[in-house]
């Protein structure tokens, strides 16, 4: 790892100010992606601004039909939260299957979505549940936040501070994890929401997380796994790599979507 200068931010404002003064700062949260990337010398920020001790970015609250999760909340806390388990069990289950237990103890919601790995789980939760991403300067719908492979709408220095999830009438997430990395080969969040049926797919698309409109239409008229029997997924839009071809992933999306609907 190249040299870097570490700063522990006391508040969101302090973090933004410290980052703005640095040459090339990166925000550090759980560090479960950033630190491995730095160790491989694929990233070399001059300064690291640690967000993990900022109290205002921690914690989970439920008010009415909305679950608000601080961006600094680790996956294990989301998975273990009785509030999340009661309000959106699909979200608690999704968080409980990210990586492995030690990764879940450190990795955070904000860190995951700010990185927007095309095989990460949380982007499917945010898009599928129609979440609102709250930053230190504005609020964005999930659909406007995720912009492709490792790309988001975040401006230079902007910090994700919380995510608000509207409680769906029902939802479930099914993923086929890569057996080595535990990242999704295909992960599908299906939800019946106030905004209609939403289907969000991660791990499979060649442009990151996406909504599967044909599945949404089919499930909108008939909420059952059978309704998906004739819905296909275009392999031209899928990722292809050493772990699986585009055709394989296109098929896997259908299988995961059916499993999700059956367990919702």
């Amino acid at each position, binding site marked *: 790892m190249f*040299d870097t200068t570490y700063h522990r931010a006391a508040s969101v404002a302090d973090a933004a100010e410290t980052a703005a003064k640095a040459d090339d700062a990166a925000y550090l949260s759980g560090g479960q992606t950033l630190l491995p990337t730095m160790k491989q010398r694929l990233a070399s920020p001059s300064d690291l601004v640690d967000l993990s001790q900022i109290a205002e970015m921690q914690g989970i609250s439920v008010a009415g039909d909305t679950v608000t999760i601080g961006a600094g909340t680790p996956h294990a806390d989301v998975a273990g939260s009785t509030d999340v388990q009661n309000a959106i069990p699909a979200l608690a289950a999704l968080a409980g299957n990210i*990586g492995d237990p030690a990764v879940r103890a450190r990795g955070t919601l904000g860190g995951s979505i700010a990185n927007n790995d095309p095989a990460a789980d949380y982007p499917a939760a945010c898009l599928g549940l129609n979440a609102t991403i709250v930053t230190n300067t504005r609020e964005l719908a999930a659909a406007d936040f995720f912009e492709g492979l490792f790309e988001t709408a975040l401006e230079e220095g902007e910090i994700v501070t919380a995510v608000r999830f509207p409680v769906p009438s029902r939802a479930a997430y099914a993923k086929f994890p890569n057996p080595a990395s535990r990242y999704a080969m295909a992960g599908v969040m299906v939800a019946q929401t106030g905004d209609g049926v939403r289907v969000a797919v991660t791990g499979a698309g060649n442009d990151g997380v996406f909504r599967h409109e044909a599945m949404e239409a089919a499930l909108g008229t008939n909420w059952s796994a059978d309704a998906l029997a004739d819905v296909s997924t275009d392999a031209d839009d899928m990722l292809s790599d050493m772990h699986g071809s585009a055709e394989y992933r296109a098929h896997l999306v259908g299988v995961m979507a059916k499993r999700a609907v059956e367990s919702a």
Partner: protein
Amino acid sequence: MTKISMTVNDKAVSRDVPDNTLLVEFIRENLRLTGTHVGCDTSQCGACVVHVDGKAIKSCTTLAASVDGATVTTVEGLANGKELHPVQQAFKDNHGLQCGFCTPGMIMSATDMIARYQASGEELTEAAIRHELEGNICRCTGYHNIVKSIQDAAAKMANA
């Protein structure tokens, strides 16, 4: 350089280290506690698992500076003098290791999972143990005796 202070295995420690020092480097190279191992250095294998403020984490994927002020337990901190921790004893009794390289991480993950399951009242089944061990890789045992060791320790700790 940053001055890092922590409580490691009940002892207050303090060292000046470069900002990019990983927790595992701090533990092994600065504190000379070499029970914590580095297997893969890419967060896959879990040989480096230690407890930070009561949670099992991978010390190769944590900056020492980011856990400044924390309470850390390494595998050296489990035994009570000459008396092994029940998880250590169970690994010994059940032949839960062969080469032993992954064992410190296995034992730290095992103590963490047993504590979490016993706190929640959930049963730590064989399937749960295997699922919980996803972040710990062993290349010798085939895991069977590791799982048996954890089941044995969990049963003894529940009755303790």
